[in-house]
């Protein structure tokens, strides 16, 4: 028996180190790499097949307003899809930004703690509803409702999914803007109150300017969400490939195009199939730029207190 304690500890430590302590970091590192591999995978799949599309279709055709992927003489103008995406996103922003920002102002500057504690979980609930449910809601409730008000509204249109998408995004704008407003130090508010300002004046002239970077970042993230949103527009805006600014008519977004084409019978290897990846690539770049812009804004223009 060796009674030297130090030796026993050293021996035990060595045993332990050999086993798990050396292996686990490698396993964790590999797991962490999966997220990077996922990004690389996304970029590679999109770029690889999108290139085949860009090689097959001349650029002048891509930037045209003629889209007919399944016609005998297929046309692949992407402008109708970009137009549809911008149209629905704009409508969504017109709902989400005013309602989301004013809700945030109310929760952060006006509401008592009690009301806040009741309203916030409802916002979270709204944010947790799957988009397919919103899609069903847009198609089966909002569209008929709008049809009663707006004559000439088609059963599938850009307006209804735009509005519902805006409602879906309200919680995002509210919670991010409210976070930004909450991080404005109270000393600033109290200074303004001491000068005799009303709550509204404090909110508009002190809190919002101080929190503007976070608020703008929340708007940009909201736009990114609207651009990438799929099921609501797929269900409620139809699949018309016309280039139109008329929001009462059916349009198609980039995301809806991808869904329509993959759930259809487009054979792999055709130009139509590769067009999916081209649209996906443009969509990916759009949303990535928006997300990076939001991160940049909130980092660069943050006021430090």
């Amino acid at each position: 028996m060796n009674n030297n304690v130090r030796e026993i500890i050293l021996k035990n430590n060595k045993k332990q180190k050999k086993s798990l302590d050396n292996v686990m970091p490698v396993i964790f590192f590999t797991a962490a790499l999966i997220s990077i591999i996922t990004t690389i995978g996304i970029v590679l799949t999109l770029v690889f097949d999108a290139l085949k599309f860009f090689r097959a279709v001349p650029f002048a055709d891509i930037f045209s307003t003629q889209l007919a992927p399944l016609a005998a003489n297929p046309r692949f103008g992407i402008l109708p899809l970009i137009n549809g995406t911008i149209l629905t996103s704009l409508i969504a922003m017109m709902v989400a930004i005013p309602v989301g920002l004013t809700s945030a102002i109310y929760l952060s500057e006006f509401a008592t703690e009690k009301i806040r504690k009741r309203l916030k979980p409802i916002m979270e609930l709204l944010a947790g509803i799957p988009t397919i449910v919103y899609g069903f809601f847009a198609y089966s409730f909002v569209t008929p409702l709008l049809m009663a008000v707006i004559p000439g509204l088609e059963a599938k249109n850009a307006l209804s999914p735009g509005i519902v998408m805006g409602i879906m995004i309200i919680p995002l704008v509210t919670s991010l803007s409210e976070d930004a407003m909450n991080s404005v130090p109270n000393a600033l508010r109290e200074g303004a109150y001491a000068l005799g300002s009303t709550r509204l004046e404090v909110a508009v002239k002190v809190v919002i300017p101080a929190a503007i970077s976070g608020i703008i970042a929340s708007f940009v993230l909201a736009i990114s969400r609207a651009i990438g949103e799929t099921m609501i527009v797929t269900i409620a805006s139809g699949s018309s490939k016309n280039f139109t600014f008329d929001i009462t008519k059916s349009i198609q977004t980039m995301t809806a195009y991808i869904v329509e084409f993959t759930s259809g019978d487009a054979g792999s290897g055709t130009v139509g199939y590769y067009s999916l990846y081209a649209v996906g690539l443009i969509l990916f770049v759009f949303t990535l730029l928006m997300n990076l812009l939001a991160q940049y804004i909130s980092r660069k223009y943050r006021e430090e207190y």
Partner: protein
Amino acid sequence: MECKITKNNELNVENLKKKIKKRIMIDKSAKLVFLLSALFALLVLGILIYRIFTQSIGWLDIQFLTSKLSIFPEKAGIFGAIVGSFLLMVIVAPVTIILGVSTAIYLEEYSSKGRLQTLIKTNISNLAGVPSVIFGLLGLTVFGRLLNLGSSILAGGLTMSLLVLPIVVVASQEAIRAVPGFLRDASYAMGASKWTTISRVVLPVALPGILTGSILALSRAIGETAPLVVLGIPTLILKIPQNIMDDFTALPIQIYYWTLDTVLTAEYANLAAATIVVLLLMLFTLNSIAIIIRNKFQRRY
């Protein structure tokens, strides 16, 4: 606010009072408008739930829950979709939790502050912003075609896992970061190695936070539709999936197809509503469990 001062250096009190009154009135009306807009969310939620519940009444019964799909609305049921959603979770849960927690442990405990750590962190926050339909394209290409998994449960589950991975990573990171340093120090002082400290001290303390995040990720995965549609889940599957290599349908997919086909058969809207009720109840249960775990087991130091 500029106050008009009269020639003999006195405040025009009347004028001032009027101005203050006006400002207070504007303030009060603004408060009302803001409150209404905050209540708008509540209103919409109320209408949405009311509409869907009333539409599902008479359709949501035991027969609906236990029957297979059918083109006849009276006979149709969502048993296959429930089994499909469940099997999907059987894949998503272990894959995301193992990958997500491991990534979080690496980022919080092992990685040194440097380019690689920043790269992984930025990458994860950007992945969280990638539209789900793009993950569908990734799944279609890599899992569906390259690995030849087709539109099986395995392909859907792996695609969904990658989609919700950032949620688990971020939640686990926060949970691990919230474990106070003195617990680690105490463990090291007892002679424990790094892995022993992480597995016996850090993870048990962080577990409630990790579980909450994982459940929220699962509830996102259950409701997500676009990636599965892009994977090419067939419209009508009459067979109940037996194992993870089978084709399947899931609750959101069923809602999608029934909503699209309301043009053909009006009753499909009721079936879609009934399925939505089932889906929402599942989400509600999951979220309640998450909240209970958060409130009951999360210790604060």
